[in-house]
């Protein structure tokens, strides 16, 4: 148990945590605005991965272009999902549970649709050569993919912060999260803002999917479930609805997961269960997560 081992574990943890954080930010954005737990977020990430896969393999696009294009296309998939599945419920003012069930349905739909169309066999993601490089400091290895994940993640979160806090559309998003009806009365086109939120969330999912695929280059229609669930845990842990919470939660969950495997190898198989136990414990102590706002119950 020397120092370089610990440093390596921390770097691996941050590498995985940055991925979870990026996915969790997408979850939290949609929840923050319309109070919908988008169970299908992990599957939208999968869709993004497959789009990037075809762009890289069939159209031979350079990777930055493929990344941006897959983000935009996946963004539109997200808008489509919202329009078809969630908007009719919103218009009717359906109970929150109905929304949650629909999201579970969308998740299963996307998975099985891709199984029907593309088959369930895992495919190798064509990782661009640049990401395969590794740096070595002493005995600690850092891969280019890790560095790229952290840099691109930081860029995405900064852009997101700019949009949410410095632009008019961001102001409208924050207004909707506080009071849906009043925002409508102020003349804000609520549907367009919500579509934009879904676009942003799904585009983020596609980017995180790309980053996931360059670190774990095997993609299949069910690949979104595990990262989706973990990122979801991270988002709830950090306080769902809060962007900072999602980032911190993602990093904590990622580092914890690597630490459990690295330092407690006996419990390695139980890591998913332990992660969930941590989540359950957090929710019981502080039901809104680390950074979540308290929701008052109106009688």
């Amino acid at each position, binding site marked *: 148990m020397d120092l370089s081992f610990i440093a390596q574990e921390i770097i691996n943890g941050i590498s995985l945590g940055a991925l979870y954080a990026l996915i969790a930010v997408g979850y939290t954005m949609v929840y923050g605005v319309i109070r919908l737990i988008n169970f299908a977020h992990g599957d939208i990430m999968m869709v993004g991965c497959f789009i990037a896969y075809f762009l890289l393999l069939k159209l031979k696009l350079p990777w930055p272009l493929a990344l941006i294009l897959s983000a935009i296309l996946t963004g539109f998939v997200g808008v489509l999902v919202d329009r078809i599945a969630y908007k009719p419920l919103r218009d009717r003012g359906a109970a929150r549970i109905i929304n949650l069930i629909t999201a579970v349905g969308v998740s299963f739909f996307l998975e*099985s649709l891709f199984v029907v169309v593309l088959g369930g066999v895992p495919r190798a993601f064509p990782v661009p050569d640049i990401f395969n490089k590794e740096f070595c400091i002493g005995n600690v290895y850092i891969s280019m993919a890790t560095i790229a994940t952290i840099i691109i993640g930081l860029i995405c979160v900064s852009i997101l912060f700019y949009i949410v806090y410095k632009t008019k559309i961001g102001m409208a998003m924050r207004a909707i999260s506080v009071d849906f009806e009043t925002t409508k009365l102020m003349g804000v086109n609520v549907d367009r803002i919500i579509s934009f939120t879904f676009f942003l969330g799904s585009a983020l999912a596609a980017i995180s999917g790309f980053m996931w695929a360059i670190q774990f280059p095997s993609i299949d229609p069910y690949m979104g479930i595990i990262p989706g669930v973990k990122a979801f845990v991270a988002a709830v842990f950090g306080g769902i609805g809060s962007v900072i919470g999602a980032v911190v939660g993602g990093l904590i969950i990622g580092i914890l997961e690597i630490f459990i495997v690295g330092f407690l190898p006996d419990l390695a198989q139980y890591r998913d269960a332990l992660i969930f136990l941590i989540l*359950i414990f957090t929710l019981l102590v502080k039901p809104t997560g680390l950074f979540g706002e308290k929701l008052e119950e109106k009688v």
Partner: protein
Amino acid sequence: MNWYLRIRKLIQKKFPNNKFLHRYFGLIAFIIVGIISLFIGNHVNEFWQRLIILSAIYVIMAVGYNFSNGVAGQFSLDPNAYAAIGAYVAALLTMSPETKENVFILEPVMKPFDKIQLPFLIATLIGGLAAAFSAFLIGIPSFRVRGDYLAIITFGFGEIINVIANNLVSLTNGALGLKGIPEYTTLAWAIGWAIFSVFFLWHLTNSQVGRILKSIREDEIAAEATGINVFRWKLFAFTLSGFFIGIGGALFAHYLTTISPQVFTFFLTFNLLIIILIGGLGSIVGSAIAAVLFTFAFEILRVFEEGIHIGHINIPPIPGLRMVVFAILLIALMIFRPQGLFGDKEVSIK
């Protein structure tokens, strides 16, 4: 639904004042259909017989799940955990010590289970009780939160149980699962348990207990203000629900004869969720009918997944098609008829 309306009209005309028959129409109809299918099941080939058994098992699990989700309105996502607990416990109790010795090749089976062998009924009951007890334990922390968060926490517990089933090798044989479970689930057992569950939960739902639970579902704060101990009643509904799902799991294990963690994933929860939503949250007979419809539809769609050859027309096999169909069905149901086929009313004549 034409024949159903016709029968209803006939009864309305023939017995205009028979309140008993009006109120219990759905329940009586279900029991009659159950008894008829018991007789039919003994005279058809094995495919249909197994289908009837499977429907009955789904009926048990669905009405159990509906009791906590629909009647008490506590949206949970972990029935797969209780089905797994019921299945594993009951299977460990009915398998003969020799079989267990052969099956557990990685690690020998845990102490009390290596010698025990119990009759089917007792094993099923113990399986159900074990599931009920775990539901009780899970319920205590879970009901401190509600709504979306309750769904998340119970989802987490469902995953935890699955991880444990995969890794607690001396009790579950890990990912290999249990093989050589005696095929005890006959037509009579399955239908008998199905009728008992529907009868029992129907009565409970349409009694004072049911009204208490429905008041909690409609408005928790108002229920609390009238002096109902909300936490205790939620826990009661959850525990009872766990018991019936556990019974269903135990029967399921002795129907499949081979169980592994793969059988009890979130997929099972998804199927049960579709069933109780089709039947209508809170309608016991509704979810029983939906369970039968679902099981038959699921098996019929299997034909498409395996491909059809009629003369010269070949429809190639389409794996995964069933889940696409059911996912679309679920989304459409939520958009167009969120209350399900029967709403939260029991099938009756008004």
